[in-house]
């Protein structure tokens, strides 16, 4: 009984990894708490839904992140770059305004009702795992989360541009003086982070329902993850995402009355003990 809940916790944790790694990357570089991230997640899900209905799920899995990468590049070039000298609060509220606009746009294009996306045929079978039957699709979600975590870590640690990203996140001014093109780096990071939000949306579409309000819950959970992990820290976000998924899963079994409160209680407890989060904030 418990193991199936742990499995579901792992699935949600994987989704949160994909979602919050984008948030953490963008915060690390731009120092922006990006409310629009939730809107990009939602747009990714809806675009994935439309593409999957017309062709197939696998094309949607490519198209949604690609479309969101373009939106991210525009957001960086015509939003964050122009506002980079303004107060963080100001920029945060601009992204909140963007969230309102995009939520209405989605309601306008796809209607206010709920939609759901079919599970792709290739993964539409049960898998036997530790004496339980689990949908293969959910195994796929865990795999995506793991791929994103490993891929991002290797990219940041091993590639040259990864080095630049780490440098620019630590100190953008000094990095720029050393010849790092910080505008290019932040375009790459915001584009990639937005693509990850789109990926999270399309991956979530077959098991969470689509509605113009779908962004709110996942966005708040992702904020919780990024804050618990230590703002801007990727490794902290990975650990916090898995912990949060597990806490929710175990809470649903042993404390069903308060399970919805657990993420918040968890966050408050961690921040009171360690105000800068698990990994410690770089700010």
């Amino acid at each position, binding site marked *: 009984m418990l193991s199936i809940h742990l499995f579901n916790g792992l699935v949600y944790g994987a989704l949160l990894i994909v979602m919050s790694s984008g948030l953490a990357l963008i915060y690390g570089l731009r120092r922006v*708490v990006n409310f629009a991230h939730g809107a990009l997640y939602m747009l990714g899900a809806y675009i994935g839904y439309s593409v999957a209905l017309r062709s197939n799920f696998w094309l949607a899995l490519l198209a949604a992140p690609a479309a969101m990468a373009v939106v991210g590049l525009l957001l960086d070039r015509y939003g964050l770059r122009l*506002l980079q000298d*303004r107060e*963080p*609060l*100001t920029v*945060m*509220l*601009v992204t*909140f*305004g*963007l*969230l*309102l*606009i995009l*939520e*209405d*746009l989605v*309601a*306008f294009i796809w209607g206010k009702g709920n939609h759901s996306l079919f599970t792709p045929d290739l993964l539409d079978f049960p898998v036997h795992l530790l004496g339980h039957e689990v949908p293969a699709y959910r195994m796929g979600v865990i795999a995506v989360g793991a791929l994103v975590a490993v891929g991002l870590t290797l990219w940041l640690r091993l590639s040259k541009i990864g080095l630049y990203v780490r440098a620019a996140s630590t100190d953008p001014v000094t990095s720029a003086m050393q010849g790092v093109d910080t505008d290019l780096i932040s375009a790459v990071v915001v584009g990639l982070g937005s693509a990850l939000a789109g990926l999270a949306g399309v991956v979530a579409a077959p098991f969470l329902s689509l509605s113009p309000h779908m962004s*709110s819950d996942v966005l*708040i959970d992702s*904020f*919780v993850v990024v*804050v618990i992990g230590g*703002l801007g820290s990727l490794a902290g976000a990975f650990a916090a995402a898995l912990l949060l998924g597990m806490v929710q899963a175990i809470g649903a079994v042993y404390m069903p*009355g308060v399970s*919805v*409160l657990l*993420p*918040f*209680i968890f*966050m*408050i407890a961690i*921040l*009171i003990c360690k*105000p*800068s*989060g698990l990994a410690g*904030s770089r*700010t």
Partner: protein
Amino acid sequence: MTLARIGVLSLLALALGAGIAGLAGSGSLLGVLTQAVIYAIFALGVGVLLRQSGLVSFGHALFFGAAGYGMGVVLALDWMPAEAAIPVVLLAIGVLAFLIGLVIVRVPGIAFGMLTLAIGQMAYLLAFRARGLTGGADGMGIHWPATLFGYSQSALLKPATVFLIAWVSMVLTTVLLLFILRTRFGAITEAIRDNEERARFIGIGTTAPRAAVYALSAVVAGIAGILSSLNTGFVSPENLHWSVSAITLLMVIVGGFEKLAGPIIGAIVYVMFKDLLGGYATHSMALFGAALIAVIVFSPHGIAGALERLYIRLRHGPGVRRESV
């Protein structure tokens, strides 16, 4: 602002309220205005926290909703007369907020905002769960007694009367805040906002004053919550949702938070604008989003800041700089 000026301005404001109540004949317009004034008080609470402590709350709907639920529960269980319940509920909100504040104001910057968001959402989910007490998703009706402070309910709930009650509450709250912020307490909190480390060097404890500002702002939001429960006779979990906090913060920023008048202007503009658009466009939130971005980008000090600049330019001619922020 000098004392005489505060006195004159508040008398003018009271007269303006009476004038609006007299002129706005139609009940529906007065209804919208009442809602605008209630939100103005709510926004004043969120704004005073930002202005005085530099802290951004994404969870003040907690106090707005808690005031409504507090009144609803106290009146339903018949613990005390409504006249006593109002100050008791406000005091309880202040104490609760001070205790929460003592814990969360230690966490700096964005994380503070996220903590307020988390605590607010917890209250929202709790109100959903506690069906027996709060009616869950259906919300709860608030059973105001037949007479309040000696006036019959039917007299009190006339649109013009409700509007005047809200308006007078708004003016009194503003005046009270002006006085509180003029005291040593106001100076201490500004010092902490501007440089916490230096404030500590000169021997000021920094946690309690900030928690006190948090409590003060919560009580102001609570006043708005009680007025809202009087106006609608109803409270639901929607009152506690984080989007209510975020919209209120939006009013504060659009109005400008550096002056106490800013949040009031922002709230009134927001509610009036929403009502005007509501009949024509179903996608009013997108327009707000766009308006929010436009105001933030082009007028960083909000509507109040823009008006002040205009006033200075009219008075002193072009080329004169703003002296104070």
